[in-house]
C-alpha cells in the first residue's frame, strides 16, 4: 500500500520537475465547470441499523471543475468535485423508511496522455472527504449511522471527442477507487450515546483500505452543444461497501444527471487581452 502511495507522489513530483523544459503556458488555460442535477435509484444497507437492504430514490447535485496546472509542463490537470445527495428509501416490507444524506468533496490531479488527437487518457489520484448519515425513522437508540471519512483515491478518465456528422459530442468516462484513508465507525454494538454523550470514543476512527472498504465511482458523461449552451448529460454509478468492526455498510446508487457546462478564464489579465483563444483541460 505504501509503495503505491509513494509511486503516486513520485510521479506527481517528477511530472512537476519537467515543467521548465517546455512552456505550454503561453496560451491561457480555461476552467471547465459543470453543475448537474439528477435523480436515480438507491440501495442502502447498514447492519448497525438493520440487516435488510433499503431501496428507494434520491436526488443529487454535483459541481465539477477542471483546469490544467503548471505541473509537468501543463500536462497535469486539477479536478474538484462537490457532490450532495439525499436519498429516501424503504425496507423490503415497506414498514419502515430511512433518509440518507451525503456530502463529499474531492480534489484530484491527473496526468494527461494523448494517444490520439481525439482522445485523452487521464490517470492520477484524488483526496476525498465525505460526511453523511443514514437515518432510520423507526429505530430508537440506534437511529442513525454516521459516515465521516477521508480517502486517497486512484482515478482514471478517458475523454473522447466524437463528431456525429457536423455535431460535436464529447464523451467522458471516469472511474475512482478509494485506496486508503481513515474513517469513523462505532464498535459492533456501541451506541452513539456512549460515544458522544459519555465520551467513549476510543477506536472509532480507523484506518481503511481495500481489506475493509471497497468503493467505485463510475461516471459517464456526454457534452453536446444546444444553441449557445453546452449541455452535459451523465450517468453516475456509485458503489460503496465497508466491513468495519463487524458492521457491514453498503450504498449503491445509479443517478442520471443533466446540467450546463461553463468554460471560463478565471484571471485573464494582460495575457488574455493579447489573444481570443485559450486551452481547455477538458475539450
Amino acid at each position, binding site marked *: 500500500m505504501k509503495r503505491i502511495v509513494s509511486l503516486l507522489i513520485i510521479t506527481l513530483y517528477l511530472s512537476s520537475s519537467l515543467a521548465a523544459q517546455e512552456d505550454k503556458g503561453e496560451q491561457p488555460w480555461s476552467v471547465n465547470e459543470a453543475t448537474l442535477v439528477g435523480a436515480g435509484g438507491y440501495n442502502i444497507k447498514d447492519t448497525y441499523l438493520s440487516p435488510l437492504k433499503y431501496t428507494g430514490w434520491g436526488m443529487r447535485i454535483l459541481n465539477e471543475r477542471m483546469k490544467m496546472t503548471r505541473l509537468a509542463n501543463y500536462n497535469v490537470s486539477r479536478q474538484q468535485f462537490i457532490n450532495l445527495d439525499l436519498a429516501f428509501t424503504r425496507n423490503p416490507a*415497506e414498514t419502515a423508511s430511512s433518509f440518507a444524506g451525503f456530502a463529499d468533496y474531492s480534489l484530484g490531479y491527473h496526468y494527461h496522455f494523448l494517444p490520439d488527437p481525439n482522445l485523452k487518457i487521464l490517470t492520477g489520484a484524488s483526496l476525498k472527504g465525505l460526511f453523511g448519515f443514514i437515518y432510520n425513522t423507526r429505530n*430508537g437508540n440506534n437511529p442513525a449511522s454516521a459516515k465521516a471519512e477521508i480517502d486517497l483515491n486512484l482515478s482514471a478518465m478517458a475523454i473522447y471527442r466524437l463528431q456525429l456528422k457536423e455535431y460535436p459530442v464529447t464523451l467522458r468516462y471516469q472511474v475512482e477507487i478509494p485506496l486508503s484513508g481513515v474513517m469513523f465507525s462505532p*464498535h459492533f454494538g456501541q451506541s452513539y450515546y456512549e460515544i458522544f454523550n459519555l465520551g467513549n470514543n476510543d477506536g472509532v476512527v480507523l484506518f481503511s483500505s481495500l481489506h475493509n472498504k471497497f468503493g467505485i465511482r*463510475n461516471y459517464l458523461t456526454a457534452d453536446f452543444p444546444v444553441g449557445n449552451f453546452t449541455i452535459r448529460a451523465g450517468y453516475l*454509478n456509485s458503489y460503496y461497501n465497508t466491513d468495519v468492526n463487524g458492521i457491514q455498510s453498503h450504498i449503491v446508487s445509479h443517478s442520471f444527471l443533466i446540467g450546463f457546462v461553463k468554460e471560463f478564464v478565471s484571471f485573464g489579465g494582460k495575457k488574455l487581452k493579447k489573444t481570443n483563444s485559450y486551452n481547455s483541460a477538458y475539450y
Partner: protein
Amino acid sequence: MMKKSIPYCLFLLVSLWLFSCEKADEYSSAPRENFEALWKIMDEHYCFFEYKDVDWNDVYARYSVQVTDTMKQDQLFKLLGEMLNELKDGHTNLISSFDISRYWKWYEDYPANFSEDIQENYLGTDYMIAGGMKYKKLSKDVGYIYYGSFSNAVGETNLDYILMYFKDCKAIILDVRDNGGGSLTFSDRIAARFLDNKITTGYILHKTGTGHNDFSKPYELTLIPSERVRWLRPVVVLTNRHCFSATNDFVNKMKMMPHTTVLGDRTGGGSGFPFNSELPNGWSVRFSASPMLNAAMEHTEFGIDPDVKVNMLTEDMQRGKDTLIEAALQLIERMNIKI
C-alpha cells in the same frame, strides 16, 4: 493499437457496472425465514445471555420445531414473542402493525405501590408544573416533586426554579413511581443537582462482536455536580416496580448521594441500553444491547433494592393515604430531629 484496446476498455467498463449492481433483498413472510432471522439477531446482539444463564441454542431447539410453513401471521407473532420472553427482559419487544409482544412480569407480579387517585390527595389540583415535573410544598418544611416519565424533558432552568421554590424547606420527596424511563440525559441532569462531589456512578459495556461474551472493557461513568442551584439537604426518593430503564439508572445514581434515602419497593430494572433491528417481513424487534453496571460493577437488570422497604397498606389506601409518602414524611421528621 488504439482500436484494439477499445473492446477491452468496453469490457472493463461493463464488468465494473455489472460488479457494482446488486439486487435488493426481497420481502419474505415465510415463518421459517423470519424465525431464523430473529433468532440470529438476538444471538449476535443481545447482551444478557450469560448473566441470565439463558441457553439460546436450547431455545432454538425448542421453538424451531414449532415453526411450520402454514402458520398464520398472528400464530408466528405469538410464538416469536414467547421465544423473546425466555429472556425475561422488559426492553425486549417484537413490534408488528397489529401487536407488540412484551415481558412485563417485572411489575405485573408485584404490588403497584402507587395510585394516582391517592396521590391527588397530596398534590391536589393547585400544584405547579415545570417541564415534566409536578411540584408542591406538602408543608412549610417538605417539598414534593413528582416526575412521571424520563421521556418528558426537564430543563436546567426548570430545575433552578423548582429547587429555589423549595429553598425554605428542610427536605424534598422526589417521587419517581410509575416512571417507566426515557432519556438518560435527564437522569444525569437531575441527579447532578443532589451531588456535592464528582462520583463514579457505574460502567457501560458494548458488544464488540457476535459472540455472547464479546464485550468491551467497562467504561467508567462519572457524574459531576451541577454548577447551578443544588439541593444538599435530605431527599427521599420514592420507588416502585414500575421504575424501569432510565428511572432505574436514576435510582442507581440517587442511592449514592450522601443525603438521599430510597424508599418504597425494588425498582423494575432494565439496565440494558436497547437497540432496534428488524425481520424480513417488516416486524421490528427491540432488545437490550449494551449493559450498564452500577459502581460495584454489578448488573441492575433485575432492579435495585430501596434503602427502606415500604409497601402500600390496604388500610392506608382505604383512608386515602399513600403509605410511601407518609413513611417518607415520618423519615424526614426523624432526620430533622437528628439535624
